[in-house]
């Protein structure tokens, strides 16, 4: 267990700046998720913590040690890769024990620690198999096992679930969370999937084009997004954005307004906006109603399946509570 702190971390490849300065102090045992669309720099940030990328400027501290110039191994971290990066010619046990073998640990100790990790991950029956004889979920567990065996101060996860199918992903997500709680190891986890981020994180860093747009607890970020980007990225279906001039009671300093689909309501009178139903998607528990508003934009309303489903082409009104309305300035900053 350890604390990790990033101080104004920057990265550039040649003349292109990819990370513009990220700061965060991570507590012992905390689970931090770095989330953002592809190309936002989230993996690069993680790889700088791992020591796989050089740090252009700023400092990374693990506990009170500055690790900028240390080799990955010397940083006391373990990493789980997107494609697992298992050594194809080694058995599961050899894969998990390789780091310890290099560190020169005695054979008994390696076998012991591998067994313990295997038990934890239900990998015991597979210890003598090679990676290609395992299913995707099992390989994922081996990759986790390789990290656990090392007993590192920090776990780093680089999109570890994105190669799995949807069902397995949900299951493994749960397992990772439980495992992390149980071992209490400080973790950094990169994903592009906001659901994964919301469910796993103690705190999350929402990255956008090389900047940390917002850092905070998932629900706090959901309820109170700091930028237009965060409001749009976190939550599914995404927040409806529309020009502030469109509504009669404009928020003076905001250029764009945002309202989450579940906060919008279809009404017949007192509408803030009027529109026409484009089509409905009935998902079972809820229904998504897509509404075309005067400037040709399409907004989404998320409503309970019990509510009446309007037929296509019906003119309707949209309403929402003023508390749920988010205003953003021309730079996308929250007002």
């Amino acid at each position, binding site marked *: 267990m350890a604390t990790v702190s990033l101080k104004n971390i920057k990265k550039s490849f040649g003349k292109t700046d990819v990370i513009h300065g990220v700061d965060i102090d991570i507590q012992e045992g905390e689970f931090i998720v770095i989330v953002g669309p592809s190309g936002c720099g989230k993996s690069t940030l993680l790889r700088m913590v791992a020591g796989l990328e050089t740090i252009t400027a700023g400092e990374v501290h693990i506990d009170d040690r500055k690790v900028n110039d240390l080799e990955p191994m010397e940083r006391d*971290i373990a990493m789980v890769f997107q494609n697992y990066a298992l050594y194809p010619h080694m058995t599961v046990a050899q894969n998990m024990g390789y780091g310890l073998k*290099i560190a020169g640990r005695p054979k008994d100790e390696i076998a012991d620690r591998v067994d313990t990790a295997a038990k934890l991950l239900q990998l015991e029956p597979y210890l003598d198999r090679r990676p290609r004889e395992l299913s995707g979920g099992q390989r994922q567990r081996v990759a986790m096992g390789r990290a656990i065996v090392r007993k590192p101060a920090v776990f780093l996860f680089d999109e570890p679930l994105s190669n799995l199918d949807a069902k397995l992903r949900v299951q493994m997500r749960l397992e990772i969370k439980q495992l992390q709680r149980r071992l209490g190891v400080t973790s950094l986890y990169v994903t592009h999937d906001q659901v994964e981020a919301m469910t796993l994180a103690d705190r999350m860093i929402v990255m956008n084009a090389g900047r940390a747009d917002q850092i905070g607890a998932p629900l706090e970020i959901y309820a109170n997004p700091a930028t237009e980007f965060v409001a749009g990225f976190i939550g599914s279906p995404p927040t409806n954005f529309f020009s502030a001039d469109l509504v009669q009671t404009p928020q003076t300093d905001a250029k764009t307004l945002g309202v989450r689909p579940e906060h919008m309501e279809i009404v017949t009178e007192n509408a803030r906006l009027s529109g026409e139903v484009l089509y409905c998607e009935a998902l079972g528990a809820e229904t998504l109603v897509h509404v075309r508003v005067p400037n040709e934009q399409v907004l989404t309303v998320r409503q309970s399946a019990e509510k009446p489903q309007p037929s296509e082409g019906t003119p309707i009104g949209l309403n929402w509570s003023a508390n749920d309305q988010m205003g953003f300035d021309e730079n996308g900053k929250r007002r």
Partner: protein
Amino acid sequence: MAERTGMVEKRGAGLWLTHLGLIIGLLFIFFPIWLAFVASTVDQQEIVRPPMPLWPGDKLWENYSEALLSGVNAPVAWMMLNSLVMAMGIAIGKIIISLLSAFAIVYFRFPGRKTFFWLIFLTLMLPVEVRIVPTYEVVAGFGMLNSYSGLIFPLIASATATFLFRQFFMTVPDELAEAARVDGAKPMRFFWDILLPMSRTNIAALFVILFIYGWNQYLWPLLITTDPSMNTIVMGIKQMFPSGDDIADWPVIMATSILAMIPPVIVVISMQRLFIRGLVDSEK
């Protein structure tokens, strides 16, 4: 209908015609080899009075033991050993230096890397046949005439294998090297523990190709081995023909020819899968 299915699926007469066509091809391929084998089992008298028989005689043991133990200029067993040393030297030597340099150019950034890359690229273009005279002078200057190193080194100086390994290393996922770094492996440890075992098939396939390449060399050993005891078997056969009008000792020469093809044939047939893979890889 039967005729229309032609290439899609052949039955009956068509099938037999296909087999017949292939068997004619096989006869063309094997007739020279068969004849050589027959000639290596009869005595000289049966050959010099044509037509020679087309079925093996009873002198197999005599001819082969004469070839192996005394030969014409040098015992063929000795020449086979020379060929073996040369072929193994070329195959192993080339694989080792190529693995090392491919590892360096793929996994490191060092000054001169690009230059080195283009220099070895150039060597792809020039077979040894083109530069025989100056290469001969270099080897002579080192006093390497009639030596194994003289036979081996000039033929290692080409980059085909380096390119092959480079191609393969490029397909090894980056994450594997990163995982190894996180596991604390230093570069040579990664090379030895991860990269080499992963390249096993490629190494084996290349070995097959290089072994045959080395075994079948002709011009180079012809130039630099003037001492019959250093002759390789493939070039030694020609040396067994008498100059002038004397009649060649055909049974022994043909026994030697058969002996010269046995090792590469065994390698090709027994490692057929690797051989075909090596062939396709090295031309990519």
